[in-house]
């Protein structure tokens, strides 16, 4: 049985979120004091009020999360080296650019955010825009070869993310986030 933790449960997770953010706030100021507590509560309150709350629940799989993290670090290293090569020895092929539309298979804000973030830090690709309904990421590619390869890479990245943070849909309605291709 995979360890399962669901995010998005109403009060319990809300309090947990505030406690965690307070911990981060104290860490950033380097000191636990009443003044920091008061300012932290205000800042966290305003931030949470401004941010849209995602009504979707997710299952977090720690092992898959570690796997995604390691893949991500590896991609960050290779992409930095690739960009460095392009900068030091620019050739027309390496500078060939384009904007490729990559459809996502899951219509889920958290998954789309993580995928879009990772695309930017992986070789050759940079997220320009994200559209919902149907979910599509527009990706700027440096050193473009076949656009279908880019789509395949993004799809693989999305599968890694979904394996780590699985959307479970709105409770009671079953799994309702998958988009038919």
């Amino acid at each position, binding site marked *: 049985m995979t360890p399962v933790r669901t995010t998005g449960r109403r009060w319990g997770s809300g309090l947990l979120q505030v406690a965690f953010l307070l911990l*981060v706030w104290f*860490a*950033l100021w*380097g000191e636990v004091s009443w003044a920091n507590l008061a300012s932290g509560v205000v800042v966290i309150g305003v931030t949470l009020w401004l941010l849209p709350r995602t009504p979707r629940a997710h299952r977090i799989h720690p092992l898959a999360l570690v796997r995604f993290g390691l893949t991500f670090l590896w991609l*960050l*290293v290779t*992409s*930095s080296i*690739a*960009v*460095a090569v*392009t*900068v*030091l020895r*620019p050739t027309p092929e390496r*500078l*060939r*650019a*384009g*904007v*490729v*539309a990559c459809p996502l298979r899951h219509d889920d804000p958290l998954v789309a955010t993580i995928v*879009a*973030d*990772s*695309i*930017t*830090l992986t070789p*050759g690709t*940079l*997220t*320009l*825009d*994200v*559209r919902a309904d149907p979910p*599509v990421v*527009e990706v*700027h*590619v*440096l050193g*473009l070869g076949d*656009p279908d390869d880019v789509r395949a890479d993004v799809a693989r990245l999305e599968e890694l993310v979904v394996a780590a943070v699985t959307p479970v849909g709105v409770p009671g309605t079953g799994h309702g986030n998958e988009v038919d291709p």
Partner: protein
Amino acid sequence: MIELLRDVVAGTLVVSGAVLALVAAVGLFRTPDVYARLHVATKPATLSVVATLGAAVVRAPSWGAAGLLVLALVLQLWTVPAASHLLGRATRRSGLQPASPDAVDESDRGD
């Protein structure tokens, strides 16, 4: 022995971080357009920060300090792509084309 190993690892990380930062700076001048510059400003620049902070984690005097550095690292990885995404999107919507003669463009220009 462990001390020496830590020094070697930290030193390697700091030097690679500095080299990457230099490459990123040079890249800003050698790339043809905003989009390519965004690539340069995100990937090597982020890895350079990761490497430098990683070196500091290896040499950190305490667990608390190491935790704080890891926090800074995670926040970097989380926010840098968001910033570049906003710059890229703004550039896109202002109608600037990639400076590449055979550029592919599949974006929806409807917005």
